[in-house]
Each structure stands twice: as C-alpha cells, then as structure tokens.
C-alpha cells in the first residue's frame, strides 16, 4: 500500500499547490529574475544588438522593475513576441510583464484580463508612402494597398479611417514587422502603416529611407505602456510605480549622475522620500525602501531613457513632442510619491 499512498499524497499535493496562484512578486523573487515580453526587434523600443543585449525604452522599463525588485537592473530575461502572441504569453504566465509598445485600449483593458500599468510613450498611428507616389495627404489614398502587422490596433484604426472617409483599400497583414518592411520595400504595398514611432524605427531598415515620407495625419491615439495580468494588484503597483519613479525623477531633476549626491543633507523632503531615506514607501510596495534610488542609479530617469533610445540624437530622431513633461508642454504626468 506504500506506493498507492505515495501517489495519492503526490496528487493531493499537486492539486493543493496549484489551486492557489502565488503572487507574481513572490514568483519573481523565487526565480530571481523578471521574464519580460518584448518585441522581435523594434529599434528604440526593444531591440537586441549583435551581442544579444536588449536596449530600448520598453527594455528600460523592465530593467527599472528589476532594479526596484532586486536592486539589480540586469535581472531580466527577455521573451521576443510577435504582436499576435503577446497577450496569450502574458495570460498564460509565460512572462511577468509585457513591455512591447502595446496600445492601451478599452477592449484590451476590460476583455483580455489584463491591466495597463501606465503609459511610457504617447504615440499615434501614421502612414508612410514612397515619395514618388506624389501623395500629400492620407485622404488621397483611395484604392491603396496597405501593409501592416496582424494582431494590432493599427489594423482596426486603418480600417476605421478608410471607412470613415468612404475609401476602399486592401490590407496585407504580416505576422512580423521585418516581413512588413521587406514587402513594403519590394513594392507590394503603397502604404506602410503603424505607430509613428514604429515608422521612424522601421524606416531605418529600408533600402533608401530618404525615398519615403511619413504623411502628416495622425489617425489614432496610441498610448503605449507596460501590461500585467489582471487580479494581482501588488505586482501591478510595482510596475506602475517603477514607471512613475522614472517620470517623477525627471520632473525633480534627479538623474543617474546626480542621485548619489542627494545622500547629503541638502536634499529636499521630496528627494528624501524618493531615495528612501524618509518614509516607508518601498515597504508599502513590498520592496526595499531604496527601490526608486536603484531604478534611477541603474537605469536613469525618463528623459535619460528617452534620449538614449529614441531621442533626436538617435537614428529614430523623435522629438519629445507630447511625451515631454506636463510642466514643459507635454502630457507626461506621474502621480507624486508621498
């Protein structure tokens, strides 16, 4: 009877263990790293270099969370996902955060069992056409062939836009961005549509980037941000506040360069709360009190991340635009740490 009781006990243990889903924060702590869902290569947002190191503002978000949780920004493993796979990968628990230029929409927030933890880039959908086509406005595109990705809001937005303007079009939707670029480059389509930041990034991959132009119309709002599973508020807070810390740091003028100088006595109360020498803000999140200090010293504030990855001095050459702080004419606004 020994074997039988062993089996019964084993099955019972298995059932008991699985019925209660542990919190993501504990899971992450137990395995020692964060599994971060990223794109399959979108320069400036999440892109691997030739040594396999990932960079980009979406990657920086995951690194910030790792810094907050472990005090080590490098405790991240990346899962490249197509637009089509991303939500399933998150729902199934394959990844802990989805940080993959993902648009926050009502359907996704309410129907998919997901929560958006904030916005790390305010984008809008645009269209790129070959200059030789002689088109100056999106309303002249009746009858166009349009290339884009499957499983994105861009498919819906472009359909809405053409329907609203009573124009016909043909949509060719690929699974991976690389194939969209290659097909557009080969002339399969007259138009390449995706988020404008994406257009800027993918344009660098074309044979002759200067032969193409981005049309002035912005046909949608695309707030891009990190996504977590619904129903785990603790983990949701960790991700949301990691992002808020980066934005607040920019507003307070705290950078990775000057944060160490703040340990002296001349810091303001807000700065003291931020770096964790005053108050117990980290504990409330389930983290160490120097969580924000770790983020800024290892990853930098939002402006540093922006300038390093997508700013005017990068191949993407994207101005801050609406992504500037609210105090500087943009709409970037984070709740205060207090």
């Amino acid at each position: 009877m020994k074997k039988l009781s062993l089996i019964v006990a084993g099955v019972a243990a298995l059932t008991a263990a699985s019925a209660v889903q542990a919190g993501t924060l504990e899971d992450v702590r137990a395995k020692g790293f964060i599994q971060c869902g990223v794109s399959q290569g979108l320069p400036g947002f999440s892109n691997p270099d030739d040594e396999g190191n990932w960079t980009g503002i979406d990657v920086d978000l995951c690194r910030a969370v790792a810094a907050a949780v472990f005090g080590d920004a490098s405790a991240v493993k990346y899962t490249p996902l197509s637009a089509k796979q991303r939500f399933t990968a998150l729902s199934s628990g394959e990844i802990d955060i989805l940080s993959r230029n993902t648009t926050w929409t009502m359907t996704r927030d309410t129907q998919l069992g997901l929560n958006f933890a904030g916005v790390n880039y305010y984008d809008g959908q645009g269209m790129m056409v070959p200059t030789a086509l002689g088109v100056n406005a999106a309303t002249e595109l009746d009858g166009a062939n349009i290339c884009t990705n499957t499983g994105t809001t861009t498919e819906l937005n472009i359909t809405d836009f053409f329907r609203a303007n009573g124009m016909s079009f043909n949509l060719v939707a690929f699974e991976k961005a690389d194939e969209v670029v290659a097909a557009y480059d080969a002339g399969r389509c007259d138009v390449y549509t995706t988020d404008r930041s994406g257009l800027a990034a993918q344009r660098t991959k074309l044979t002759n980037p200067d032969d193409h132009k981005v049309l002035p119309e912005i046909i949608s709002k695309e707030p891009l941000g990190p996504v977590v599973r619904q129903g785990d508020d603790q983990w949701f807070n960790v991700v949301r506040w990691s992002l808020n810390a980066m934005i607040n740091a920019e507003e307070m003028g705290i950078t990775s360069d000057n944060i160490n100088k703040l340990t002296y006595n001349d810091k303001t109360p807000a700065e003291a709360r931020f770096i964790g020498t005053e108050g117990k803000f980290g504990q409330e999140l389930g983290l160490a009190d120097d969580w924000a200090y770790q983020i800024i010293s290892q990853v930098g504030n939002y402006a540093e991340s922006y300038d390093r990855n997508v700013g005017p001095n990068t191949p993407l050459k994207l101005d801050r635009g609406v992504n500037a702080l609210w105090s500087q004419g943009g709409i970037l606004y984070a709740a205060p740490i207090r």
Partner: protein
Amino acid sequence: MSRSSSLIYDRHIRSIVFQVLLVLGLILGAWWLGNNTVINLADQGKTLGFNFLSQTSGFQISSTLGTWVMEYNVGASTYLDVYFIGIINTFLVAILGIIAATFLGFTMGIMRLSQNLVIKGFATVYVEVLRNVPLLLQLFFWYFAVLRSLPNRRGQIEIYEGAAGINITGLYLPAPIAQSGAGVLGLAFILFVGIAIWLGRWAKKRQYETGQIFPAFWVGLGLIVFGTTLVYLVMGQPIDWSFPVFKDTGPALRRGFQIGDGMVIVPEFIAVWLALSLYTAAFIAEIVRAGILAIAKGQTEASYSLGLRPGITLRLVIIPQALRVIIPPLTSQYLNLTKNSSLAVAIAYPELVSIFAGTALNQVGKEIEMISMMMAVYLTFSLLTAAFMNWFNARVKLVER
C-alpha cells in the same frame, strides 16, 4: 502468508489495481487542469463562452476566396464570418497544394528512376534541395522571389488583353457573376460530370468483358465541355463576367489594376501554394520512388514480354501495385501539408491561424475557445483526409483470390 499479501502477488488483481489507478490518475489530472483553468480565468476577470462569435469584427481582410464567399464587409460581418473565411482560405491552399504536390511528386519520383542521366540528376537535385531546406525559409524565398520578379503596381505583364494580367499586387482574372439561371448551369455541369464518370466505368467493364477499347476519357471530357457550353448558350448566358480594369493614366496611386473589378489572386496565396506544393512534392517523390522500387523487376519483364510498351507498363502494371506501398505514407504527407499551411501567417496570407487565432484573438482575447475552435478545424480536416485515404487504400490494396 496472510491473505492481503497473496493478493499483491496475484497478477490478475494487480493488473486491475494498476488500471484503476491509471484511470483515476487521468480523471484527477483532467479535473485538475479544468479546475485550474476556471480559477485562473476567474482571477483575471475572464469567463468562458462563445458569445463573441456574434460580435462584429472591425478589421479589413485581404481579398481572397474566403472574403468573396462570405461576402466580407467590415462593420457588418462577425467573428464567426472571420472564422469561416479562415477555414475556406486554409482549405483552398491545402486542397490545391495536395493536388499540385501529388502531380509533381509522382513526376519527380518517376523521373528519379529514369535511365536518362540528365532527367535523373535533375529530379535528385530537386528532391535533395527542397526536402532539406526548412519550409518557412522556402516560404519567404518564394514570396520575395514572386514579389521581386513581378512588375510594380503601376505596370503589368499582360497575359490576355483586357482580361488577364499580373503585377506585384496579384494575378488578375475575369470574375464570374452569377445571374438567374446559373443554378441550372451548375446542375447541368454536375450531371455531365456524372455521365462522364459512368461512361468511364462502362468502358472499363466492356474492355474487361470484350477486350474492346473505348476512348472514354476524351468522349467524357468533350461531353462536359460541349454539353456545358451548350446549356450556357441555351440558358441565355446566365453568367456575367467582370473583367479586370487596368489604368495607366491619372495620378500615380490610381494607376494599375482597380480594386473591385475582376478577380485577384494575391501573391501571398501564390507563394504559399508554391512553397507547400514544391516542398511536399519532394517527399512524395521519395515515397513514389520507394513504392516503385518495391515492385519486383519480374513484373516489368513480364509486362514487356507480353508486348506492353514502357508507358503502359508503368501505368497499368507497376503503379497500381506500387500504390499499395505508396498510399499510407502519402496520407501523412497530405496531413503534413494541411498543417504546414498554418505557416502562411508569416507572409500575410489570411488563413485560419492568421486572421482567427491572430487578429481576432487579439481583439476578443478568448484564447481557450478560439484555439479549441481552430484545433477542431485541423483535426476534422485531417481525420477526413485520413478517412478518404483509408477508403482509397482499401480499394487498391491486394485482393487475395
């Protein structure tokens, strides 16, 4: 020895105990999976259900057979329509792929056995190259080879003036538009095909009995072509044709073939069909070669000594026997081809995985329901293929007398 220990050593009882344990384990496992799913879904605020199928879909789908059959219309069509479009497009490429792969595979397999070194060498190179390069790479190769070799959207290669042409956006052909009376025409066509099949059987039977040969194939074909044409004319031409329109003047964007005129076969379809057919044909060629080699050489010699020419020997003596060896592995190649068609998502052919398990899934987020529906389609199609091939196999297998 106590009674209980003797029970443990009783083989019969022991085997029953283990079987009961196995069944219990399976039931527990299934219950555990199901229960976990429900709990995890509830945690994420999701429910199970198929109500989403009646929601309208808000995205455009590349014009293909599926969108044409379902009369897809953004804003009016539902996710259920999207599902059917995916199924139709998957089946279209699978069926046409199976037909092409079979013809090409048989040709290549027979060519590999040729005495002619050039023919044999060509077939060998074909088989070795195509079956040893991953299918996804071939898919990309054919897609971009097709795209790069065609004129751009403003140009065309004219196949027949005003009726057929090809450029990078696809192959344009006249599209039939059914008018009243088209149904009669369809029935007449089916009737003529039925007569032709009956004629073939009758001719074969007569040949077995009397030895007289009747050219049933050509007579049947003629009957179908001329009979259908006759009915078409008698019914007052009940099918209108929509011809593709090509413009080479006007603003740059408006030049080229016009959307909505004629029928377009998109390059994505051509590439998927080419890749699947060529790839699977390489495997079928090997199966055919093995099947033919499995037939004893004496059969060929016996056939020659009866005075039959090599072509007839192959067709009437060797192949029917070889089919017994060929059909079982051929069935798995057909199943492979069907399942491989899901790779088409990579190059924008709107088949089931692409539009239903891709775009639609991302919008409604019903993973379990939608993936199950998709698996049901592949399973059904595979089982139907297998059933048909088993029936065919039973027909050609050696009947012992």
